[in-house]
């Protein structure tokens, strides 16, 4: 039996603290040097005064912000509605693609085409085609509101990405889990619903949230169809006053949503690392 002498333990503790303090100091100094250097380069550039007045004008910010904020509501509502549709539609497509039931063959073919096409075409093109193509059909009963049409286009495009995320999750669950579920007497559907899917979804929460974040900003693509959402209002405002500050205001609003989502994603990823290393129950 040996015990560490108390003074040695204290010395070790002191050394650890000194090392931590030094680490903090280095981080602060290097941040100041790098960020300060960048700021100095920008602020001393010959064009800075002009950029400052066209992009960072406080008065232009103040006058345009309320309108942009009001318009941003459309973005938020559209984002939430599209996300809800995408989560469900993506799951349905993924399930159709992973089942082997022969009766579902036509659906399986369709969903494969859906994913291939919509993932391969730029989202902005889908927005154009749906936004201008559907009204051009002049069929009664089809939506004509550009916000709705834009939302449909975004939901189509993102459902393809999200379906693939779900599918990867489903494939990542080891086949022995399905075998165990069948062996206790569950049906194929029950095995998927009770055993495979819950594990799959937990594994892909982070990538799903990642797609959330990119959807949140792609909502601005709907502006090409004309509805007065935040980006469009900022654009109009900028054109009227020959000042780009409203665009900065709009950017800040998008960031106000995407940054918290990104932090949530970080936390979730840290948590899932803990789960796979067995320190946190699923």
């Amino acid at each position, binding site marked *: 039996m040996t015990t560490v002498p108390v003074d040695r333990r204290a010395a070790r503790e002191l050394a650890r603290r000194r090392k931590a303090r030094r680490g903090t100091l280095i981080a602060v100094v290097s941040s100041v040097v790098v960020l300060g250097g960048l700021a100095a380069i920008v602020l001393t550039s010959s064009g800075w005064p002009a950029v400052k007045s066209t992009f960072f004008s406080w008065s232009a910010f103040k006058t345009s912000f309320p309108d942009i904020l009001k318009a941003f509501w459309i973005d938020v509502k559209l984002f939430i509605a599209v996300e809800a549709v995408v989560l469900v539609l993506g799951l349905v497509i993924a399930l159709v693609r992973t089942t082997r039931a022969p009766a579902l063959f036509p659906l399986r073919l369709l969903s494969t085409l859906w994913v291939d096409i919509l993932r391969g075409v730029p989202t902005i093109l889908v927005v154009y085609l749906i936004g201008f193509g559907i009204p051009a059909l002049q069929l009664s009963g089809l939506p004509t509101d550009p916000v709705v049409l834009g939302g449909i286009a975004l939901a189509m495009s993102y459902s393809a990405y999200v379906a693939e995320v779900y599918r990867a999750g489903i494939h990542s669950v080891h086949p*022995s*889990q399905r*075998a165990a579920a069948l*062996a*206790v*007497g*569950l*049906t194929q559907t029950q095995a998927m619903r009770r055993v495979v899917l819950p594990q799959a979804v937990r594994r892909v929460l982070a990538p799903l949230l990642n797609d959330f974040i990119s959807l949140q900003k792609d909502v601005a693509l709907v502006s090409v169809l004309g509805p007065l959402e935040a980006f469009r209002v900022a654009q109009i405002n900028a054109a009227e006053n020959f000042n780009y500050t409203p665009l900065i205001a709009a950017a800040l609003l998008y960031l106000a949503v995407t940054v918290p989502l990104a932090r949530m994603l970080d936390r979730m990823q840290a948590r899932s690392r803990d789960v796979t290393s067995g320190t946190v*129950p*699923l």
Partner: protein
Amino acid sequence: MSDAVLEVRGVTKSYGDVQVLRGIDLAVREHEAIALIGASGSGKSTLLRCIDLLDDIDDGDVFLDGEVITDPACEPVQVRRRLGMVFQAFNLFPHMTILENVALAPERAHGVDRREARERGRELLARFGLAGREDEYPDRLSGGQQQRVALVRALATRPRALLLDEITSALDPELVGEVLSLVRDLKAEGMTMLIATHEMGFAREVANEVCFLHDGQIIEHGDPERMFTAPEREETQRFLRRLLDARRL
């Protein structure tokens, strides 16, 4: 028709060009335990999976209580509900607590009321020395405890027979005993079992009959005592000698 609970007749199975099972005949009578031994890759797991209809056989028949269960018209879900299977790697559901693992099948596959399924699960877990662990997740348990939970999960649906696939070979040596003693208890209670195993001492003690699987066929079977002391086939002798050299006998 014999009085066997489980009967396998002339079963063959190939994966691609490789014929894994080449005509298996085997019967497990009520309250009997049959040990299935054989080298790694001889097809023990494949045979058990085929009996539980987790894999399709190519030819032959499997009977459960005299009824052909390998008939294409037979509903595999109904058959699996009458059998219990325990896997080498436990295969517990990691997103469910121990109790949820155990109560899932009675509730979802047998329509037992949720409260009753959980109550019964609790009792079963307690009977097998797992009281107090109900609300933990599988990854908090030792391998031996996890495998005991897997056994309880298989028992929770009151199966007609149990299929055990090398249930101790993924365990550290010191954990093997606690799992085997549970199987010993089940045997004493009269459970009908087909046990693929590498634990020869255990097979000799518990089994009514030992079947030696070699090259996709059961080339020798019989009373455990005779099988281990005086095997007739040269392949059996060689297999047992190799195990002896590896100090597993």
